[in-house]
């Protein structure tokens, strides 16, 4: 079944707005939860319960002065937040969120693009996104921005190795790189979270390092680096970096649901609803970790990534491969 090109356009428009809406309200929910966890209210002035806060933020960011550092490289300075946000948004295209429907005789697929190498594509886009961070920090030509972007880059590439290896177990069990087939395989057998528990844990830890979330938010360690790679950014261009981070987080959680928790499959309720229901607890854990755990030291972070996660992930892959061959 193939869907018509105009349906793809409508679906793309709807999906990208849903992702942006999810990002906007994720910031609000995060601030609300963090407020409650720290015994304060969080934003509650703009609209009832602060529900209009993301819109107020957007207006504020757009109205801010568009500042250029005098010695920065202008074109790279402007392009890098665009690159970061573009790759983050694009990554969501391959995540399946439903089984496909027929509406008024027209077929609508349950994901934006069902490509056979979806998993590799996701990691490739994630790696490309690093360019946005490192070039942005370099182009602003400031000490703190450069240090921050170097740290971001080193951290992200270190944990990307473990992230890619932790998923190898899932690929071995599903025998496919297509996310649709991985979801179908889980529906036919069992959620991969159970046989791949170690893989899930490694995926989760290196994923939160990959998205620069606390306790791995070294790139933005305020006490040492002012604000990390976006020290010289303000207004909407700063907002685009934030957008990239939050959307990366949402995509990573969606990938976690897809790879380990059976994707959109579930009894009674429709697929997209199940998908969101599974997504919310994972996002909540990320917010919870941010309020609870203190930040690591940089040498601890690197040592943990290379000396603990990498051997564990390799071991997980080898044992999985052995069992897969043994069982079949």
């Amino acid at each position: 079944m193939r869907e018509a090109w105009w349906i793809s356009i409508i679906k793309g428009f709807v999906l990208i707005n849903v992702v942006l809406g999810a990002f906007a309200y994720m910031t609000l929910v995060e601030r609300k939860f963090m407020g409650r966890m720290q015994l304060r209210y969080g934003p509650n002035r703009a609209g009832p319960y602060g529900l209009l806060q993301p819109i107020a933020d957007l207006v504020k960011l757009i109205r801010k002065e568009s500042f250029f550092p005098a010695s920065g490289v202008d074109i790279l300075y402007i392009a890098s937040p665009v690159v970061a946000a573009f790759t983050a948004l694009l990554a969501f295209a391959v995540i399946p969120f439903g089984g496909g429907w027929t509406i008024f005789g027209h077929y609508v697929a349950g994901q934006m693009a069902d490509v056979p190498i979806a998993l590799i594509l996701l990691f490739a886009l994630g790696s490309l996104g690093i360019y946005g961070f490192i070039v942005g920090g370099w182009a602003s030509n400031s000490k703190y921005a450069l240090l921050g972007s170097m740290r971001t880059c080193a951290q992200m590439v270190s944990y990307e190795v473990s992230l890619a290896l932790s998923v190898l177990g899932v690929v071995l069990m599903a025998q496919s790189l297509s996310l649709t087939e991985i979801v179908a395989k889980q529906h036919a057998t069992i959620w991969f979270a159970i046989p791949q528990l170690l893989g899930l844990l490694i995926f989760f830890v290196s994923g939160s390092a990959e998205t620069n979330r606390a306790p791995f938010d070294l790139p933005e360690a305020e006490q040492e680096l002012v604000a990390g790679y976006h020290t010289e950014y303000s207004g909407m261009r700063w907002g685009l970096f934030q957008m990239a981070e939050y959307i990366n987080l949402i995509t990573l959680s969606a990938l976690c649901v897809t790879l380990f928790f059976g994707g959109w499959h579930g009894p009674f309720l429709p697929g997209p609803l199940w998908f969101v229901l599974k997504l919310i607890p994972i996002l909540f854990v990320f917010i919870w970790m941010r309020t609870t755990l203190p930040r690591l030291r940089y040498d601890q972070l690197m040592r943990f990534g290379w000396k603990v996660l990498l051997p564990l992930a390799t071991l997980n892959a080898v044992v999985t491969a052995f069992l897969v061959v043994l069982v079949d």
Partner: protein
Amino acid sequence: MLDNWLPFLIYALFALAIPVSMVVMSFAFAQRPAKRTRTRGLPFESGVSQGPPKTQRFTVSFYLTAMLFIVFDIEIVFLYPLAVILNELAWFAFLELLFFIGILVVAYVYVWRKGALEWQ
């Protein structure tokens, strides 16, 4: 096969349009400063303004990490195709996998013993 990529391209256009339009809007609607002075454009320096760093240097450790990343990540990418067809080739593929990872482990032990995994 290529038809799968058409929706992806459509989505990519949307994904590109949004950040670009946001940057354009930040130019169109932003407030202008009353006066552009030279100090306004200086990079942030904790209150100590010595002008921008002319040649930016960074620690060699970052470079080392990048090299390690290239070594390990490229090899992991090679493992993906093997993982997909592991079932069809059964024990032969598994032995190949062990051999491949064995070479990787030798390199890993060497790097560890050399102290390249320690952050300095």
